[in-house]
């Protein structure tokens, strides 16, 4: 369980996040949704210790993210931000191998190699594995970074807009991979999503944010509701049931 208590982070005038309180259940996919500037990425960065907070506490499986040794945390939680420019020239294979660093400190054991192999297969990157990242398309690169996170093999996986840059096919592919990780391996996934239909179709719970605060949280079924979404986005969003999925039609 990820336990966020009274977390506050201030930027400039009125921005940032204020007194956030939320618990994220284990073994589920939880989506963070909300309009631009709601503080979703900030919250995710704080949960993953990338960003220091001004007040409050976050613990993951009882490990306080500020006090716990960073290396210990890296075996429990992984984070992938939306922009991943790196200045080092690496192949996909080499990048994914970095995911094993918290376990092996750079000396790969046969178990590490197997994990890397699986991550590459999961993301269907075998044909590209020896290509350099700077020669890939945005979508391929994004999949490579997700593969690295998979190789890290952590209980908790935090992703900041992982579907950025991806076409429909690969977006669906990644959501299905995340689904399998939770259903088969019991992993916990927290992700920031912009398209609420992806949140609706693939996540178990939704946390909705607005202006640095949590507006509402709950199971997906309760959250995908015209009244709730109206409170989050200030839009009238009709919802239709198609093949058992709730689809938001926000093109008015």
């Amino acid at each position: 369980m990820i336990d966020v208590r009274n977390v506050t982070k201030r930027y400039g005038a009125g921005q940032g996040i204020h007194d956030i309180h939320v618990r994220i259940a284990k073994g589920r996919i939880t989506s963070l949704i909300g309009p631009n500037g709601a503080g979703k990425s900030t919250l995710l960065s704080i949960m993953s210790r990338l960003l220091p907070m001004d007040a409050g506490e976050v613990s993951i499986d009882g490990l306080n993210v500020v006090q716990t040794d960073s290396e210990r945390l890296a075996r429990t939680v992984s984070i992938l931000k939306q922009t991943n420019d790196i200045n080092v020239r690496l192949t996909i294979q080499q990048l994914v191998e970095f995911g094993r660093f918290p376990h092996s400190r750079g000396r790969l054991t046969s178990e590490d190699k197997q994990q890397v192999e699986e991550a590459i297969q999961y993301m269907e990157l075998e044909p590209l594995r020896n290509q350099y990242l700077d020669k890939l398309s945005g979508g391929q690169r994004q999949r490579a970074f997700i593969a690295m996170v998979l190789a890290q093999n952590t209980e908790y996986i935090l992703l900041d807009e992982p579907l950025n840059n991806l076409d429909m096919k690969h977006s669906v592919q990644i959501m299905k991979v995340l689904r399998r990780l939770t259903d088969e391996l019991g992993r916990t996934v927290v992700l920031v999503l912009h398209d609420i239909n992806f949140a609706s179709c693939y996540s178990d719970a939704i946390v909705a944010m607005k202006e640095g605060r949590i507006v509402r949280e709950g199971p997906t079924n309760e959250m995908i509701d015209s009244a709730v979404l109206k409170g989050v986005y200030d839009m009238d969003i009709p919802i239709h049931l198609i093949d058992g999925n709730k689809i938001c039609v926000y093109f008015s």
Partner: protein
Amino acid sequence: MRDHWKLLLLAALALGLTAVFLTIDASGDWDYVLPRRARKIGAIALTGAAIAYSTVVFQTLTNNKILTPSLIGLDSLYLLLHTVIIFVFGSSAFTAIGKHEQFALSVILMVAFSGLLFRMLFRIQGRYLYFLLLVGIVCGTFFSSISSFLQMLLDPNDFLLVQDKMFASFNNVNSDILLMAALISIAAVSVFYREFKYLDVIALGREHAVNLGVPYDRTVRRMLICVAVLVATSTALVGPITFLGLLVANVAYRVVGTYRHSTVLPAAILISVASLIGGQLVVERIFTFSTSLSVILNFIGGGYFLILMLKEDKT
């Protein structure tokens, strides 16, 4: 595995050049020639290694292959120190103040200066490393303004002494000081040896490094101290060589074609030592000492930097 061969080849090149350097034109006068040349080789190897190591590490920390730590104003500080000594005490006292004291004073002053810079700037979040460089350069201009004013007031003989200090020279290295410098450099590298394994990951940038469990801020801080000590020591030993590091780090990356520091660092060190020995041979045998090695190196290194800049693709 091919990288191992490349490293061996580079090592052979460096050793070969060393052998040539030690034996060329010795005309049987071994007792006189060998110790002097060995001392020179020692200074060259130490400086070359320190510059290569500090630049490669610095580029990893800044996530940027076109920077070098010599930029933070240490060269100007070194020159200012010597200008002030000559200005205040005159040339006679300059030679009277022991070389040991001068060396120690330079090292202490430069490490203190970089320490101060780092301390001041570690309170600031964000892109502090570029920022640090800029502040260093501004301080450098500050120092050189004062130096050049003092230099204008010096009489021509004293100015010649200052002029000597403007350029790195391997010709008059004292063996005690060489030993001292070697000990300091080895200490700096070994104290922070435990951070070495994080370098590959730090090259990915802060966020990835933190995600992968690297104690990022601590490691960067420690490695910066190491870099500062190495640059200060090598500058105090032979004088400023601004662009050598830039040259050898980039050539090293090109030669070995890997990102792994365990390969890139030795390659950079070997290339650095080999080019210093080769350069010194050229200066001594072809130019017969009429120009300074550091001037040639700045010239080549700077030119390479320009080519690097102009070839850089916009992505």
